């Protein structure tokens, strides 16, 4: 990648002012186009920053709208930006190409073109995203890179005997949680490989099957068994939202079968639209297994193959566990989480929309409370005290608000009876 000469907004304004006396008419026209583009750029980013989403920047990010600079060649519609790199003395340089205005922008970094993965629903978008989305991506990367300057590998994170003993003595265990969008997987093997990578040190052997024969699945599972499905209901009908993950009799969820839903129920009290199972491993063996809405595998084995699914469903199972969970191959986010060095494993699937709401709230919370969450940062007693006060106040306010709502609901229902 060739790096072109760049000029900051301020430099350029000054430069423009100097030549504005009419000495370089060619430059004037050239500059006007640049100014217009710059205006547009700043406007788009400001919109996004200020009114658009009203969202805080990622904690510790130093990226600002002003750091985006135009390339020297106005025709190229290339925007340069420098963010902090993995080490303090090597910043990372990115070029954004405005292919179709601010809506279709591609990004090239030190390692070539960057593939955009939506940070909340984990969907791989390919190489084009909107300018605000790249701004946010760069802001997050800037913060992450800077974090790695101060957060060096902790002394307990190695696998030598001494460190292992240190961990055992202090009951330090590893845990992690990784999410992906099922639309990103083409074959059962791809999905299986991701699951086992996400399971880290765990001895669990998760396996993905591709649904190739919906009839065989229905026949094997029969109407009495339930599985999870994405609702195609119109809003309001039976309380479901379109695209919501629901549980229903198997025969209506599969392939070409389009009978009317019956007996739709939610996934369990207080759980929401969510499906999953958990494992407790003892060495290589499964010690405990818990899963709802799963189908005995032996009854539906012939319905599955190993390549690409012929119906938009994956079957998730664990070696040695004769149960399979159907997971939609579209519009679903799956999460693999482990704890206790992989002895506990949870697999879950959620509809993309539901996941997005939660992930959004979580991300905004992490940005607002980033300072308190940053373990590399010492806080003074006064700072901690202020955080405690703020958190308690928020909780109390929410409590009062909920009480008020409840009171109003009660009054409304008593009023209705009169």
């Amino acid at each position, binding site marked *: 990648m060739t790096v072109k000469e760049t000029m900051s907004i301020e430099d350029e304004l000054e430069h423009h002012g100097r030549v504005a006396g009419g000495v370089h008419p060619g430059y004037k026209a050239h500059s006007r186009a640049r100014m217009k583009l710059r205006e547009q750029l700043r406007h788009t980013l400001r919109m996004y920053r200020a009114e658009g989403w009203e969202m805080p920047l990622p904690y510790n990010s130093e990226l600002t709208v002003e750091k985006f600079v135009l390339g020297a060649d106005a025709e190229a519609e290339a925007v340069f930006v420098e963010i902090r790199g993995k080490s303090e003395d090597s910043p990372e340089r990115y070029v954004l190409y405005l292919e179709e205005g601010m809506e279709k922008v591609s990004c090239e970094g030190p390692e070539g073109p960057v593939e955009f993965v939506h940070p909340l629903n984990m969907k791989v978008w390919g190489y084009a995203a909107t300018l605000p989305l790249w701004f946010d991506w760069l802001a997050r990367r800037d913060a992450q890179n800077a974090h790695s300057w101060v957060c060096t590998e*902790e002394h*307990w*994170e190695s696998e030598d005997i001494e460190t292992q003993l240190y*961990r055992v003595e*202090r*009951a*330090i*265990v*590893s*845990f*992690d949680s990784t999410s992906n969008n099922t639309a990103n997987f083409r074959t059962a093997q791809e999905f299986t490989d991701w699951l086992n990578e996400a399971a*880290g*040190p765990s001895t669990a052997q998760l396996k993905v099957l591709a649904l190739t024969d919906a009839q065989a699945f229905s026949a094997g599972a029969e109407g009495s068994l339930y599985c999870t499905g994405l609702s195609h209901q119109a809003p309001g009908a039976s309380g479901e939202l379109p695209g919501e993950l629901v549980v229903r009799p198997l025969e209506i969820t599969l392939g070409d079968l389009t009978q009317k839903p019956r007996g739709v129920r939610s996934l369990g009290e*207080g*759980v*929401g639209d*969510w499906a*999953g*199972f*958990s494992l*407790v491993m003892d060495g290589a063996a499964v010690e*405990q297994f*818990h*899963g*709802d809405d799963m189908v005995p595998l032996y009854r539906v084995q012939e319905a599955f193959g190993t390549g690409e699914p012929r119906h938009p469903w994956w079957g998730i199972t664990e070696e040695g566990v004769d149960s399979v969970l159907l997971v939609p191959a579209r519009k679903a986010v799956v999460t693999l*989480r482990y*704890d*206790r060095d992989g002895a*506990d494993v*949870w697999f*879950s699937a959620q509809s993309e929309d*539901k996941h997005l*709401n*939660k992930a959004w*709230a*979580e991300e*905004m*919370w992490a940005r*607002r*409370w980033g300072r*308190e*969450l940053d*373990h590399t940062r010492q*806080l003074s007693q006064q700072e*901690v*005290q202020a*955080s*405690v006060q*703020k*958190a*308690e106040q*928020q*909780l109390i306010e*929410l*409590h009062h608000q*909920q*009480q008020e709502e*409840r009171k109003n609901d009660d009054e409304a229902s008593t009023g209705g009876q009169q």
Partner: protein
Amino acid sequence: MSTLTVNPVKDRAERDTGFPPVPELGEGEGNPRCLWYWDVCTDTPTKKIVWRGKSSSENYAETLCARHYAVELSRFTEVHFVDCEGTVASHILDFGDM
């Protein structure tokens, strides 16, 4: 990328995420160390959040250092109700100094 924790409290994770239960875990009162589990915190707990269990015998006191207490409370307020029909009162019995 993995993270490390001390004595993870599993029933908490279940409450927050709806993950199916993994039995016989959880530490509770009497633990000398802050129960924050995202990263290692060696601070002594000074604050508590008493979570309501399904029955009174399942009520559970989460003991935390002041900083992680603030973080934990704020996460509950700002994130939990996105997909929970319950209320503050249906989840928390008591909070504040230990």
